[in-house]
């Protein structure tokens, strides 16, 4: 694992990879512009491709969050989908508040599902969500808080390895059950949808769609640099050391608990951000996002791309989801076989992921 520990003078391979990454980002940035071209143009990019790429960008941010925790600190969380969904719910609540009297029941304040369920006033946890900055803050704060509580309880009693994975899976499972309840006051099994506008812009315009796309792309780049900065800092080295020999780091006098807690909370917040960007793009959020399968699927993106590489995690998110989109349209029955096969193949044959293939020389 010396690749990330000591950063030698960039090899030609690394330079090539970096150039390729920059090229991909530029290509992504061009997509909404190419979408404006006339339909018969050779460079026209379809609406479908733009919207699905927007989704994948959000997934890539989630993958970065998982890679930060798993690839660097060895914390395999099977519950990152919960942070993602919580961030999405926070923005979803904002979007619901913005619908205002345009809902089918025409109530000035209450969202449709509350009128339907016989609410007379807004529950306290909905207060303040009409403000975008507050909602955005909550989209980061709530996942961070949950990650902080779960992480604190787990790391303090030195729950590691598979135990931690199972606990995080139980966490997202419990949240899924809770969010499916109608009396949670969060839309029950239907969740939130039929959003109208965000920041004064109707969501169904091309401008809104490309703005959201660019917001996601900028966030992806920003999150990448943040993660890259952290992993190269002294803290990043401590994290890698914890991953490889936790007890030794502890004996050397570092606070393993604090380091892990920091990275887990940050990772949860990044996942929350990804969810917050995702929901306005796809226009719906429901408790299905909490399903344990979603979280574990996100883990496999990272595994496929190569954990502990950041770029690989994002690459994995794009490639696995591209395969998924293609396969579910061509042969839907085969997708789960392919995904299951991917789990087996990656763990057995490609433990360092796709990027590991390229970076073999670094070993």
């Amino acid at each position: 694992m010396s690749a990330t520990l000591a950063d030698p003078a960039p090899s030609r391979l690394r330079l090539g990879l970096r150039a390729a990454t920059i090229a991909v980002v530029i290509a992504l940035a061009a997509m909404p512009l190419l979408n404006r071209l006339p339909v018969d143009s050779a460079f026209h990019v379809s609406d479908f491709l733009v919207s699905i790429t927007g989704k994948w960008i959000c997934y890539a941010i989630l993958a970065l969050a998982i890679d930060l925790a798993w690839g660097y600190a060895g914390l395999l969380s099977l519950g990152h989908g919960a942070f993602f969904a919580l961030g999405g719910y926070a923005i979803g609540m904002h979007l619901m508040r913005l619908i205002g009297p345009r809902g089918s029941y025409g109530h000035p304040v209450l969202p449709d599902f509350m009128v339907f369920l016989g609410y007379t006033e807004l529950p306290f946890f909905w207060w303040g969500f009409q403000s975008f900055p507050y909602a955005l803050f909550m989209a980061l704060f709530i996942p961070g808080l949950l990650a902080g509580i779960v992480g604190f309880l787990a790391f303090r009693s030195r729950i590691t390895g598979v135990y931690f994975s199972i606990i995080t899976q139980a966490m997202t499972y419990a949240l899924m059950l809770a969010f499916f309840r109608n009396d949670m006051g969060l839309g029950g099994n239907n969740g939130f949808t039929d959003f109208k506008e965000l920041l004064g812009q109707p969501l169904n315009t091309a401008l809104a769609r490309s703005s959201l796309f660019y917001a996601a792309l900028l966030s992806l780049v920003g999150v990448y640099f943040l993660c890259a900065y952290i992993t190269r800092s002294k803290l990043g080295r401590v994290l890698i050391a914890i991953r490889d020999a936790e007890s030794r780091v502890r004996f050397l006098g570092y606070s393993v608990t604090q380091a892990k807690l920091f990275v887990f909370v940050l990772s949860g917040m990044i996942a929350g951000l990804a969810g917050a960007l995702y929901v306005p793009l796809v226009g719906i959020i429901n408790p299905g996002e909490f399903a344990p399968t979603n979280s574990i699927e996100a883990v496999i993106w990272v595994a496929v791309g190569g954990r502990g590489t950041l770029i690989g995690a994002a690459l994995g998110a794009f490639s696995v989801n591209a395969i998924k989109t293609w396969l579910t349209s061509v042969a839907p029955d085969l997708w789960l076989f392919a995904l299951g096969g991917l789990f087996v193949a990656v763990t057995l044959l490609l433990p360092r992921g796709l990027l590991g293939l390229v970076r073999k020389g670094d070993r």
Partner: protein
Amino acid sequence: MMRFLFACLVVLSFALPARAQDAFTAALPGLFGGFNDIATSVDQLANAGDPRALPLLRALSDGRLLKRETTLLIRSDAATTDAVTGAAADAAGAEAIRLNNRVRVALRGAIGRLALVSPDATERAAAAEAVYRSRSAENIPILEAALARESVPRIRAQMELSLAASRLMASDPGVQRQGIAALANAGTENARALLLEARNNTPALADEVNAALVAVDRALAIRRAAETLYQGLSLGSVLLLAALGLAVTFGVMGVINMAHGEFVMLGAYATVIVQDLCKDIPWLQPWSLPLAVPAAFLVAGLAGALLERGLIRHLYGRPLETLLMTFGVGMILQQAVRLAFGAQNREVISPAWMQGTLEMPFGLMVTQNRLWVIVFSLVVLGLTIAAIRYTRFGLEMRAVTQNRRIAATMGIRTGRVDALTFAFGSGIAGMAGVALSQIDNVSPNLGTGYIIDSFMVVVFGGVGSLAGTLVGALSLGVVNKLLEPWAGAVLAKVAVLVGLMLFIQRRPRGLFPQKGRAAS
């Protein structure tokens, strides 16, 4: 004329027991008199306790009782019979006995009381309930008499309740006290309602009634607790079955198998297949379920052995990768079964000897198939413990768990032991599938619902301890059911998960931690 009639009746009824016969025959002449005589006669007939009285009174009430001089005839759709001898008779010249309201009231009570001693059990049960509803002090003696000869427990209980209810209506406080005492012992919801009513009607006995209410409430609380306990044990036994195999593979081998739920599902589908195979052989049908147990063990065990030898073996020492890989295997298994059998639920029919409910003390109702699942899970647990403790394979398994290298130097083929252990744990999962097919829908995602709970059980009980698995499963099941009434099923589950996380704070290694070197 009267004298002649008596003579006739005495001659006719030689065969009857003397006392009943006397009372029965003595009551008959009144029926030929005025309305007051008829009413008196009806009461006497009801008290006579003679089997002929009930059809006679029913006929009277329906206007089907005819009189002709000294003879009473019962007319029915088919024929006319003599009310006393039961012999066929001619209805010519006979006229129906007419009724007035007073007679009708007397008849209603009389028929109700007589039905209490009817030879037909359902009729007695219905009558006991009818007397309960129309409670009156007059019914006390007849209920006492009926109770003396009643032997069916369910009807006895209803009669006792009716008797107590009737006693409450008596004017004598002593009799009322008897009723209150009986209700205090009955300890049912009905008894509670009666006592609450009595508290308003008889203020003089308020102290007794209140004391009785306390007793009834206590009995009700005990029953409710027993019910909750049973439901909890039933859920816990399901968890135990699902977690037992996991305790072997995870606890003993340290291998986390996310496909465990799918092995449970395979076992359930093996049950479906065995049942389909047995469908055409009538004598085998009731035994398809016992036959499915070894079949499910073999199917799931074989799948487990293949998984271990083919894949998991290459990942020892890398638990996180094992987790992901087995999850992928679970996905593939689930999708394969979905494609092979369809996504819809498959039905597994319980054999007749597993259906129905059992009645336990305190009025507790117990469904038989759940009882069988509890028994089955305990048997499987016992067999598992025995296999680990007393067989050669179990000994080798424990040796490998404690120290793989030393075990290898002693000549144990650790690879073979690994494969067998994994097959064993998976086979137990398959048997869990047989049990689950009895109480849950058999569908491709049957296992997913249990896998997280099973892991919780193993972690709670302490990894590597089968006793911990037992205690963990049963207590999680009971706690779940205890929380359900006031938190709802979903919140109860969430609360259990949260509680478990907090518990692990105090006891990171579970209830029964492993001791010694094996622990690290």
